[in-house]
């Protein structure tokens, strides 16, 4: 026989403990104090953080490593458009449930990080007012070109243009990715390296196999050339 | 003086509310006009020092009857409450004539046959006295009323639940 309504009292005891505890144990409070300077101007576009880059990075890295907000595009080098990973295959655009991605493919090819001439996105827009942070674009991308950012300061006074992130807003370096999501970035890089190695190995093996095949073929042909008269005889 | 202002205002609101309730095409607007009428009437009861009746008027008419009417409209009409078809009934003219005739018949004694107007006596309205009256001389009436309400409740539930109508009756026009 439990006390009638005992569950409610138990729950209230838990919340009371949290309430009182939050005043005495500072480590209970999970929020960090948000450093906004009164002199900061309001950003005109989402992601334009009115702070210096260092501070901005610190701000995104103060949130936990597992925080994800909206997607960003990765590049590998110092010059974003030379080493962009995205090849404008438009898979993410098709898969996006709220259809917040808009891509225009470039007309000509250009060398990218892989050293091969590839298409690149002439336009790559994400409407963050529509995006629901589902991370499906990240799942489907075959080139590891799109990953989740954790930047949260996105407020702007402009409801329409300000919340539309352009390609150049979205491009972030791999180093930045390593800073905000170290574990995930390391795992991803490792996987990319392994895949690359496997590809290389496969290529090598394929080349060897082709060589072997060619040798065998040559040998067989030589043998065949010798044996053809017999065969002709046999068939006749 | 203040009593007169209150009377004229409340009676104007009551008559207007009743007229709108009766003539408005949109039924939901009509119900709200009806509630304004009930509220004005409750004010008139208060003016007549029948404060318990005024409270009951609000409680029963606005709180219960009005809501019930709203639900009935939502169940039977379109949600917007617009009565799209022809609003007036066939014999509307004769209806008006009869209403006017009844008005005259009601008005004549009110004006003529009563003794000259007398001032209201000072009374001490007491809910307690009303309660004692309900419990002592009128207790049988109260019990019968309770039975009636129960019967009405059961009747309403059965009527609204509906009897299973056979299929062929449904299809016949």
């Amino acid at each position: 026989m439990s006390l009638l309504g005992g569950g409610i009292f138990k729950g209230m005891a838990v919340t009371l403990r949290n309430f009182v505890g939050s005043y005495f144990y500072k480590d209970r409070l999970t929020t960090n104090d948000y450093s906004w300077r009164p002199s900061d101007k309001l950003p005109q576009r989402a992601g334009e953080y009115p702070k210096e880059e260092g501070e901005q990075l610190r701000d995104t890295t103060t949130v936990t490593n597992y925080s994800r907000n909206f997607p960003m595009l990765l590049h590998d080098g110092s010059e974003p458009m030379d080493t962009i990973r995205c090849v404008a295959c438009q898979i993410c655009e098709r898969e996006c449930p709220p259809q917040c991605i808009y891509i225009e493919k470039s007309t000509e090819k250009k060398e990218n990080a892989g050293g091969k001439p590839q298409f690149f996105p002439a336009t790559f827009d994400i409407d963050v007012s529509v995006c629901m942070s589902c991370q499906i674009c990240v799942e489907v991308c075959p080139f590891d070109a799109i990953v989740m950012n954790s930047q949260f300061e996105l407020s702007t006074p402009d409801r329409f243009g300000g919340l539309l992130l352009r390609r150049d807003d979205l491009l972030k370096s791999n180093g930045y990715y390593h800073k905000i999501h170290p574990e995930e970035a390391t795992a991803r890089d490792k996987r990319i390296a392994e895949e690359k190695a496997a590809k290389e190995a496969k290529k090598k093996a394929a080349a060897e196999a082709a060589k072997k095949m060619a040798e065998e073929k040559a040998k067989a042909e030589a043998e065949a050339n010798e044996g053809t008269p017999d065969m002709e005889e046999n068939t006749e | 003086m203040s009593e007169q202002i209150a009377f004229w205002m409340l009676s104007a609101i009551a008559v207007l509310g009743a007229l709108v309730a009766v003539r408005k095409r949109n039924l939901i607007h009509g119900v709200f006009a009806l509630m304004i009428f009930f509220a004005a009437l409750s004010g008139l009861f208060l003016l007549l020092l029948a404060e318990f009746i005024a409270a009951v008027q609000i409680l029963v008419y606005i709180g219960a009857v009005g809501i019930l009417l709203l639900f009935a409209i939502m169940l039977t009409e379109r949600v917007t409450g617009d009565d799209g078809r022809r609003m007036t009934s066939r014999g509307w003219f004769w209806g008006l004539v009869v209403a006017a005739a009844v008005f005259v018949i009601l008005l004549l004694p009110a004006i003529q046959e009563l003794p000259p107007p007398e001032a209201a006596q000072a009374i001490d309205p007491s809910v307690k006295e009303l309660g004692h009256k309900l419990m002592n001389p009128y207790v049988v009436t109260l019990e019968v009323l309770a039975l009636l309400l129960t019967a009405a409740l059961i009747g309403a539930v059965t009527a609204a639940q509906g009897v299973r109508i056979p299929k062929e009756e449904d299809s016949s026009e």
Partner: protein
Amino acid sequence: MTLHHYLILAAVLFCVGLMGAFTRRNAIVVLFSVEIMLNAANLNFIAFWRYSENPALLHGPLFTLFAIAVAAAEVAVGLALVIAVYRHFKTVDLESMDTLREE
């Protein structure tokens, strides 16, 4: 304010209700009108009580109290009937419920 004022007001309200009941086709509006008439009658009772010889008897409020209770029951049953009728005829238009009429 005298009794006459209240009686005339009640007469006006009653006739407004009567007019509604006679001139509208919608069953629910007819129900509104009946309510208006009942309330006009209640106003009469209270007014007569207030200006009566012996208000301490509380006849007016008591009668009105019973009338309100009966009216509440009436509305409940009336609306239940309207809904039942709506189920059957798919309308609350009083003039299209004419199954008994000879064609």
